[in-house]
């Protein structure tokens, strides 16, 4: 049995949120809906995200000035339900409509589709964008297609800054979609994670093995491979991204994201390795963010996300934001 700091595993999500809003007094909590929102209401387009638990600080950590307005929090690794999402939409709505930033998972999309119908019955304008940045999965219009992973944080930032400028719903949506089109990510996993309440991990990784392209829920990736040096990992990851979208000779924002069980030291080592690959590929890093932005419980590993920047994105990225998990001043 894995050691975890918890009480009854079935209370873990509620207790986490209780702690979260105690620590972040600028946020409020609709307890029975497991929905967190800003307290202060400004007249602007509302921004909502949703997702399962176990990815902290995503997504409630991105609520606040310049980013999201409300987040619906699901069970472990599972989408929140329509009534929760509706509550988040209501909490974010100030009459200028709400943009919901989704990640491409069947459960998230299905639950959202019901919530959207319910919100529209209340005359709330709801638009959505779907993040699908993970190059490990082939995109497809036939199957579920590409997953949304840590590149989503860029979308929260860009859309949040655009909404804070006073843009209209349609404009915020266009900018968010443009960001999505310019973001690609790839992850590697070094170890597994165990859902609180379960006796065994939901997936396995061998002793000297890593998995390239594993998802943020431990979904299998592209292939298992032998653990290599940070330099080699950085090359493999960037190569895989460049095969999908050519960032060479471009200015980019970089997100080096820890999955929960990897020390910052290793993330910064990888960052140094990425610096070399970027120099070789003539990729100019305009902003580099390193830390645990979207995790998978205690999984060891990381993901790298790149976003190609133009003047608009640079301006929006540099705008201040003040949230529990991301502060830019």
């Amino acid at each position, binding site marked *: 049995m894995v050691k975890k700091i918890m009480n009854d595993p*079935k209370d873990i999500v509620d207790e986490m949120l209780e702690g979260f809003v105690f620590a972040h007094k600028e946020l409020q909590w609709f307890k029975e809906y497991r929905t967190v929102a800003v307290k202060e209401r400004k007249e602007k387009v509302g921004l909502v995200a949703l997702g*399962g638990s176990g990815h902290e600080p995503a997504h409630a950590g991105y609520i606040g000035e310049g980013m999201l307005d409300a987040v619906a929090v*699901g*069970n*472990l*690794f*599972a*989408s*929140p*339900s*329509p*009534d*929760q999402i509706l509550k988040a939409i209501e909490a974010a709505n100030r009459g200028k409509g709400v943009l919901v930033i989704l990640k491409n*998972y*069947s*459960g998230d999309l*299905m*639950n959202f*589709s*019901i919530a959207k119908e319910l919100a529209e019955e209340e005359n709330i304008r709801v638009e959505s964008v779907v993040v699908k940045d993970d190059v*490990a*999965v*082939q995109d497809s219009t*036939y*199957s*579920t297609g590409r*997953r949304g992973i840590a590149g989503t944080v860029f979308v929260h930032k860009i859309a949040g800054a655009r909404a804070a400028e006073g843009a209209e719903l349609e404009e915020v949506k266009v900018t968010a979609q443009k960001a999505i089109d310019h973001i690609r990510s790839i992850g590697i996993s070094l170890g597994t994670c165990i*859902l609180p*309440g*379960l*006796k*065994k*991990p*939901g*997936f*396995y990784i061998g002793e000297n093995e890593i998995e390239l392209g594993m*998802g943020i*829920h*431990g*979904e*299998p*990736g*592209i*292939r298992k491979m032998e653990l290599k040096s940070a330099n080699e990992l950085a090359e493999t990851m960037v190569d895989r991204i460049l095969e999908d979208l050519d960032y060479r000779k471009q200015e980019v924002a970089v997100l080096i994201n820890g999955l929960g069980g990897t020390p910052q030291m290793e993330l910064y080592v990888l960052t140094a390795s990425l610096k070399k690959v970027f120099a070789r590929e003539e990729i100019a890093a305009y902003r580099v963010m390193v830390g645990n932005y979207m995790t998978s419980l205690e999984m060891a590993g990381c993901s790298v996300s790149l976003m190609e920047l133009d003047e608009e994105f640079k301006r929006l990225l540099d705008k201040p934001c003040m949230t529990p998990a991301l502060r830019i001043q």
Partner: protein
Amino acid sequence: MFELRKEDYMKYLYEVAVRIHEKEEYITELDAETGDGDHWLNLDTGFQKLTEKLEEWTACSYAEFYRNIGMTMMSAMGGSSGVLYGSAYLKTSKLLEGKDVITPELLGDILEGWASAIAHRGNTKPGFKTMLDAIYPASKRYGQAIEAGKDCKTCLGELKRGAQEGAENTKNMEAVRGRASYREDKSVGHLDPGAVTMAIQLECLAEFIIENCCK
């Protein structure tokens, strides 16, 4: 042939909750192979919540009861399972308006309603390696047996076997929806956990009716 009353349906739900609860290792193991390992946990959470609430629903109508089941599954389970089971119960609650028993024919309509609600909400078809691949053949074979005028046990046996064989057949399918579709091999060679847990429920329902309601 049989009458499935609301009190019976409650007993069935208690029983199926136990069966799901007992399958932690098997289901989580299956899910670990192709998904993210949370399917059992969320399904179990939903069924435990459901059994806690059942006593509050003794006085309501059958249709209201079905609506309550749907709403509870949707909110307590969450994820894909919650919304799909929730949609199935909510949609078929309409078939129960003004009824206080489920007859063999009505059960056929309910099963068909479940399959179509799941296909619609999940934007899925038979053969996509999902829970639909258990409910769809089960509903079809049960319907054919009823139409052919077979006896109670035969019809329910068809329901059970349709579900079991349907779940078994997902092994050879390529996943089109859900997390199993992310694998490059599309999870061929692995059972779909969602189809397996759907089959467990349908099996349990068939066995419960045979044991308690068949005349």
